């Protein structure tokens, strides 16, 4: 389909837009340079990790439960989305009842109802349903591993059942995007066709895309939350995986906003009049260690040694201060942080001693292969950062070799597990995690039953004690008590050095001063609705 009417100059493009749409909503075009190397999947369940969901998920689609992204001063919380309310059945705590929002329509005009919810869950969970989509399923399935059944109780009520009582379920279902069944029929029941003409319920409509080059979104004036109808005329997304290309594009005015500018470029961007926006968000940058047979990381002394070998403050300096050094798996000061006994200090001597104890030494270093990506959502500056780690680790006697793959490929390997052939013998992968809720923060990485292909316990870690703690979290519906259990879990994560815990990102984005009204939420996701562009 023809997506772009050719316009000679950016200035005239704007002028043209003004005359066409009238002055009421003439708020300009915002162009964003993403770190992804391709336009994220447009059919609903976006790929490309958290960034994909940020730009192609919560923009064009809604989940039953959304995130409240309106505030910058506190961690984002869940908010009603396509479900106006939800509750767990007190008699049977595996039953969740969702009351749907009335009067919502998809971009194609068809109505959203309980049938659509069931249809969408079938889309990713039921392999023999006609609308089953392997691509969306790959993205969505692992987000809701506990779901065992679902049905429409009436046109506006849906029941979803989980394997066991699970207090964290709302945090899982908020990942599942609702695409239009009517549109899928209209597009000849082909997801490839839907990808070119998608339809969701979100505040933005995908008006077109050129694969690998750009995507365009326009406001959905009929959005159910009138306060979140976008003010811009258009949102343009440009994949620019190379940090340098992003900076160059911003400086030359090709885009107005870039994700994750290279730290080295930040001072010069500021000097050139661009503004830098940062905020805390629930992120960590780790090496996920494999516990498969033969992995050196099965020895706790090696895991601890690696954690003691990293000069986290040096790394922070490399990142131009745009980071928080890790003190544990969660961000420092997090309510679930607890009091872990193992301190993540920089102590190469202690690290060497631990390695010696484990039977390694200068003549017999730990030698292993690590999977890393060249870019990606939340991965910060993976190449130089990993090179820095490589140097640190080499100094204590851990010799690592990198296998560099593209970000989406790394995600695929992450889902396939460290024992799969695709991991090519890598014993760890550099992966940044969204650590928003008990499930995304802990359970998905460490529960025995979530080993691939059932979940994303990439490293095949399994500890009955940990599983018992997880069960406790799931069955503790009283928030205050839940926090107590979560603290214990985090202490165990750190004391057992389950990950190589390195740093937390502060989500830097650089943008032109023309961008107005953006509130950077403490979240992986952001709301683009209130933004306007100054002339």
């Amino acid at each position, binding site marked *: 389909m023809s997506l772009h009417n050719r316009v000679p100059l950016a200035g005239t493009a704007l002028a043209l837009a003004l005359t066409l749409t009238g002055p009421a909503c003439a708020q300009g075009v915002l162009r964003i340079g993403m770190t992804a190397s391709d336009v994220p999947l447009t059919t609903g369940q976006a790929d490309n990790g958290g960034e994909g969901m940020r730009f192609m998920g919560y923009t064009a689609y809604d989940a039953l439960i959304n995130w409240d992204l309106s505030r910058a001063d506190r961690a984002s919380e869940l908010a009603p989305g396509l479900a106006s309310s939800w509750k767990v059945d007190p008699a049977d705590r595996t039953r969740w009842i969702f009351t749907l929002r009335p009067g919502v329509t998809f971009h194609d005009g068809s109505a959203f109802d309980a049938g659509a919810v069931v249809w969408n869950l079938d889309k990713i969970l039921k392999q023999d349903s006609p609308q089953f989509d*392997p691509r969306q399923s790959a993205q969505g399935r692992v987000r809701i591993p506990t779901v065992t059944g679902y049905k429409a109780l009436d046109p506006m009520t849906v029941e979803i059942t989980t394997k066991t009582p699970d207090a964290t379920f709302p945090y899982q279902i908020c990942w599942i995007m609702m695409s239009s069944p009517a549109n899928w029929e209209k597009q000849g029941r082909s997801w490839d066709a839907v990808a070119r003409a998608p339809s969701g319920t979100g505040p933005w409509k995908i008006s077109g895309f050129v694969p690998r080059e750009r995507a365009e979104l326009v406001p959905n004036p009929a959005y159910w939350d009138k306060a979140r109808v976008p003010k811009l005329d258009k949102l343009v997304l*440009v994949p620019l995986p190379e940090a340098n290309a992003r900076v160059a594009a911003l400086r*030359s005015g090709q885009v107005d906003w870039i994700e994750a500018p290279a730290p080295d470029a930040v001072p010069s961007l500021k000097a050139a009049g661009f503004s830098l926006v940062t905020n805390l968000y629930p992120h960590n940058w780790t090496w996920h260690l494999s516990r498969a047979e033969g992995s050196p990381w099965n020895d706790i002394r090696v895991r601890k040694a690696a954690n003691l070998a990293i000069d986290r403050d040096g790394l922070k300096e490399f990142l131009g201060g745009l980071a928080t050094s890790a003190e544990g798996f969660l961000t420092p000061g997090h309510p679930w942080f607890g009091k872990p006994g193992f301190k993540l200090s920089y102590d190469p001597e202690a690290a060497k001693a631990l390695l010696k104890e484990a039977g390694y030494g200068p003549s017999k270093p730990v030698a292993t292969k690590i999977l890393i990506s060249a870019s990606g959502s939340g991965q910060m500056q993976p190449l130089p950062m990993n090179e820095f780690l490589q140097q640190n680790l080499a100094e204590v006697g851990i010799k690592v070799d990198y296998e560099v793959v593209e970000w989406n490929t790394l995600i695929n390997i992450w889902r396939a597990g460290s024992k799969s052939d695709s991991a090519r013998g890598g014993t760890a992968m550099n992966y940044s995690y969204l650590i928003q809720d008990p499930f995304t923060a802990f359970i998905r990485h460490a529960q025995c039953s979530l080993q691939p292909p059932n979940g994303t316990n990439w490293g095949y870690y399994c500890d009955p004690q940990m599983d018992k703690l997880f069960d406790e979290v799931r069955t503790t519906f009283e928030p205050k008590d839940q926090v107590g259990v979560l603290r214990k879990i985090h202490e165990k994560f750190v004391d057992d050095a389950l990950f190589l815990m390195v740093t937390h990102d502060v989500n830097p984005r650089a943008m032109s001063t023309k961008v107005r009204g953006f509130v950077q939420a403490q979240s992986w996701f952001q709301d683009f609705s209130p933004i306007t562009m100054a002339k």
Partner: protein
Amino acid sequence: MILFILKRIGYAAPVALGVTVVCFLLVHLAPGDPLSAILPVDATAEMQAQMRSAYGFDKPLPVQYGLWLWKVLHGDLGTSIATGRPVLSEVSRAVSNSLILAAVATLIGFTFGTFFGFVAGYARDSWLDRVASAIAVFGVSVPHYWLGIVMVIVFSATLGWLPPTGAGPQGSGNWWPDPEHLRYLVLPAVTMSVIPMGVISRTVRALVGDILNQDFVQALRAKGLSEFGVFRHVVKNAAPTAIAIMGLQLGYLLGGSILIETVFAWPGTGFLLNAAIFQRDLPLLQGTILVLAMFFVTLNLLVDVVQTALDPRIERA
């Protein structure tokens, strides 16, 4: 002439077949199970079965090749692992973008190359020759991907005159040579043009020098032919080879654009190859290379035919 063309096609056909064999074997070069090389890591059982039968991995190699070639001849280059889109549609969009870039670069290179070549060839061993030759050596010796970075530093980052990446303000959709799109073309095209400029200039210099040294030119001069007449004569004799080199350069640039396209994020075949390599998308890699190599074979054929038609000295079979 027709006989010559037929003979030349008869010669190109087995080469083309050989190219398909090499491209086919690329998938088998990759370490590990060839099936895993062409499947997403979390492929479903149906997908695996489908691919296995499509590629016939359980059959002997020659049979697999036959099956694959049959599909290729019907325009089926397989499906990209990373995007799930047909490889042919990905490649055809990218080829047209690469062609724009390579053609403009060749044209720039040809213009400057012939100019420097003529200057140097006419003024042999003078300072003009030395300068022109130095420029030519620069052209063939400079790592063009580095030159690209330097160009971005100077013209985009520092001076802010030209956009550093991309094919146009709205991507490559609806590409048209209007001023806005041409601005995006300048840096990659000029960077890329240093290669054909160097090659063509060296060739033309040698040609012009040789022609001027030939006895009959001396004779023509002695007979009182004007300098312009001599020049015309030189052009006529140098043109077929120069044009042939230009044609081949177009092919080299089209196939060799990966580094430049990576530096400038130009959405062409090189960019696609880079993505294919890092996404381990072997069907896409295979398809792109097949299309580019076939293009090159065809171009070679055309160049031969054109050169023969232009050059009276080459005997037509």
